[in-house]
């Protein structure tokens, strides 16, 4: 096809950024498209005349009667009608009319578009969806656009606008929609065939329709969209103009950094383009390089980027606290960003539990993260990933955020740590409410380390009482109905009945997809004389009930481990 082919006409609505609009109009005209330009009446006369003079050499560029256009109101449709009539009357060769604005930018050679339309001579490209079925609009006014009256400007008379809508709703006002009309909505930017467009403009009922749409809200998104349905069966309900909207329904602006994205999209036209996007204008308004592609637009990637933006704006990244997102308590959408494991009592019962766990599972194993004198990071580091300080004062400033930061900083790697009755108690509730926490408790195991300690019995008794109290309070939290963590609690006696099975179960739960069978068990602390030790505590009035029913003679029935020696599974 050559530039003599005048089958594609462009109606251009220009409001602002005249210079850019002029460049785009030149581009259309240079590539053989008849162009009818409507310049908003609000543009000062001098700038408009200068703008028009620039097209003196282009016989195929016409200017239509200027109206004062206001967003969301009838004047835009009226301007489109006038310009379209001029187009159809002045350029009899035109078969498709393309509606564009001054901030639309053709991305592919105009010849591509002409070829594309030439192969589909009867097709109308206009996004047109029934309001019955599609909840597209943001802000609530969808069906009501057609059944209420909107005499006030949304931009200038917002209060009157809102008030009048409310009033009509209250008295139950409902406009009658003209017979035979089924309201449809869609993108303002269409490409119609001469046949359809002239049918709309020359319809015998046009006066009636115009009168009705004059009071519809945002008629530019519904007038042609609705009437095209009446006059044509051949409708492709999509716009050839790429437009993206943010979560409030306002159009996104394309910048220079979108260049590659736009180029790969294979869309014909995109809007809105930032007027100062020099690179975009330079790249896409270059004289068409003969490379003709016939491909359909592919907007997948662009769609994803912009729907990501909406998601980012409306939903948070779980477990992240930052400047632009600070949820109220209880609304966090995840307290932490990844699962982690908390072991309570295991370090007392097994001598080398941490080393064993990290060797068996390969995950990051910390010591007592909330120990009173230091956060025991893996490897005894004093500063951990992300710059977390092990100083207890820093940690206890806000234990929950400390833990959330730690999990966030190491995202992608599973972490585990120990917790016990001596540790910062405030973190208890945080972990309990966190669905990412896997908490396993052997209650009363703290008695084992006391049993091995070299302290006076009176001191031991005192410490045991404190620990038991702290642990009881902690267990109460874990058993509360508000707990969302995965919690497993054994008394020490219960745990000792089938220790290997219990450990295996925990590992399976931690690493669900690996069918890891461990061949080496952690080394159990020596328990000979432990029963007597407990009895002794009882005799001093301190019943260590959290340990469970530990036999006093130490002949533990299910006890499979000869103390001090590693246990091997055959």
């Amino acid at each position, binding site marked *: 096809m050559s530039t003599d082919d005048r089958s594609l006409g462009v109606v251009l609505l220009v409001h602002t950024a005249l210079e850019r609009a002029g460049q785009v109009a030149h581009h259309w005209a240079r590539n053989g498209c008849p162009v009818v330009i409507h310049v908003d009446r609000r543009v000062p006369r001098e700038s408009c005349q200068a703008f028009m003079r620039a097209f003196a050499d282009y016989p195929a560029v016409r200017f239509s009667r200027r109206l004062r256009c206001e967003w969301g109101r009838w004047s835009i449709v009226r301007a489109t009608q006038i310009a379209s009539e001029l187009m159809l009357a002045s350029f009899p060769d035109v078969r498709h009319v393309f509606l564009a604005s001054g901030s639309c930018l053709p991305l592919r050679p105009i010849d591509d578009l002409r070829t594309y339309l030439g192969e589909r001579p009867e097709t109308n490209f206009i996004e047109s969806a029934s309001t019955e079925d599609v909840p597209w609009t943001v802000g609530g006014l969808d069906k009501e656009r057609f059944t209420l009256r909107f005499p006030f400007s949304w931009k200038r008379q917002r209060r009157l606008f809102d008030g009048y809508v409310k009033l009509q709703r209250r008295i139950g006002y409902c406009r009658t929609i003209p017979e035979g009309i089924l309201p449809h909505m869609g993108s303002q930017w269409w490409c119609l065939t001469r046949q359809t467009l002239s049918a709309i403009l020359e319809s015998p009922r046009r006066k009636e329709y115009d009168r009705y749409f004059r009071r519809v809200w945002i008629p530019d998104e519904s007038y042609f969209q609705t009437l095209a349905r009446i006059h044509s069966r051949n409708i492709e309900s999509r716009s050839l103009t790429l437009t993206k909207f943010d979560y409030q329904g306002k159009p996104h602006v394309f910048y220079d950094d979108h260049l590659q994205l736009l180029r790969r999209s294979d869309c014909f036209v995109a809007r809105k383009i930032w007027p100062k996007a020099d690179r975009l204008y330079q790249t896409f308004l270059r004289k068409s390089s003969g490379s003709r592609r016939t491909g359909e637009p592919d907007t997948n990637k662009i769609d994803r980027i912009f729907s990501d933006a909406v998601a980012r*704006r409306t939903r948070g990244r779980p477990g992240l606290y930052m400047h632009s997102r600070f949820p109220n308590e209880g609304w966090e959408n995840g307290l932490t960003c990844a699962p982690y494991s908390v072991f309570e009592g295991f370090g007392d019962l097994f001598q080398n539990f941490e080393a064993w766990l990290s060797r068996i599972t390969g995950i990051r194993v910390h010591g007592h993260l909330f120990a009173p004198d230091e956060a025991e990071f893996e490897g005894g580091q004093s500063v951990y990933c992300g710059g977390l300080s092990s100083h207890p004062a820093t940690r206890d400033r806000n234990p929950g955020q400390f833990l959330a930061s730690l999990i966030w900083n190491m995202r992608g790697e599973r972490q585990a740590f120990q917790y016990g009755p001596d540790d910062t108690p405030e973190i208890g509730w945080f972990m309990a409410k966190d669905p990412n926490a896997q908490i396993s408790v052997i209650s009363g195991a703290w008695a084992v380390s006391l049993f091995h300690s070299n302290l006076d019995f009176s001191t031991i008794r005192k410490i045991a009482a404190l620990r038991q109290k702290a642990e009881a309070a902690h267990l109460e939290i874990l058993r509360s109905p508000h707990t969302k963590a995965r919690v497993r609690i054994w008394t020490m006696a219960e745990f000792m009945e089938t220790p290997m099975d219990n450990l295996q179960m925990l590992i399976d739960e931690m690493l669900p997809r690996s069918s890891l069978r461990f061949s080496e068990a952690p080394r159990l602390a020596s328990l000979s004389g432990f029963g007597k030790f407990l009895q002794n505590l009882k005799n001093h009035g301190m019943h260590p009930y959290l340990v469970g029913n530990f036999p006093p003679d130490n002949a533990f029935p299910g006890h499979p481990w000869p103390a001090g020696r590693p246990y091997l599974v055959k």
Partner: protein
Amino acid sequence: MGFARELKTAYLLRWKRRRLLFRALRKRHELRAVRNRTSCIGKRDILLFSTVRNEAVRLPHFLTYYRRLGVDHFLFVDNGSDDGTHEYLAGQEDVSLWTSEHSYRQSRFGMDWLTWLQIRFGHGHWCVTVDADEILIYPFHDSRPLSELTAWLDMQRQQSFGAIMIDMYPKGRLSENAYTPGDDPFEGLCWYDAGNYVWTYQQKIRNPSAQGGARARAFFAHIPRRAPTMSKKPLVKWNRRYAYLNSTHSVLPRRLNDVHDQSGRLTSGILLHSKFLPSVIERSRVEKERKEHFAVSSIYDDYYDAVIADPVLWTEDSVRYSGWRQFEDLGLMSRGGWA
């Protein structure tokens, strides 16, 4: 009760703000105009306000950077510089300069002077208020000028923009990092702490406030509450009735502190902090004597001593700066709905 208390807080804050404005009005006599080029400020210009003292080293890069970002006019208050800052600024075409010999501390760390200038010149403009060692980074700052960010914020009906300040430091000792004025300071100061920020919500003024970063880790681990606040609101669509409350950490009226969302994320930014250029050592010596920087200066003597000792702030877990997308990945700032 909740409602009544809210009402009372709102009322008290209103008076607080009026007091601040009145204070600025009184302190205007402490300012002397050196170069007043404010007549060339256009209606939609973006303005930058800053109080400086002996910043000749940083200013060349500072001005270049913010000019490229699209700041149209700079309004500086020079608080008794003796290193050529004064002459340098007076010679710049797009800078208006005032000078004051009065106490920095008693003018709320320069805020009273700036508030006065903002009353006079900031009304209706988007205003950047930063120190000379703060470089504003926002999503797409390398391809979209500040005016596009403010256009986006306008469209979102967001009147202020939040940024967290990040202490940048070199790999070795502070003194080993050579710096030539005019260069990008973050070629040498390219390391930072990525994940040790603690957020507190100041209910009364609706302000999310952060502490953390290298200084908190290295100097304030034992007294985290004393660590410097890192959250700021450096960009505000100004009105002559507004006033910064506590440096630029918070603003009144308090709705301007609402730069965060409950569920999703708004657009936010970063202030790269070039405090730890080699000059900080000498400066700390001076400031320790001058006692002009903190409300209760004596608490910070240890901090000054630690900086004077020329420490290594770098650790194995420091992150090397590689652009704004990295900050976004790390969750330190967000594009929000801006794509």
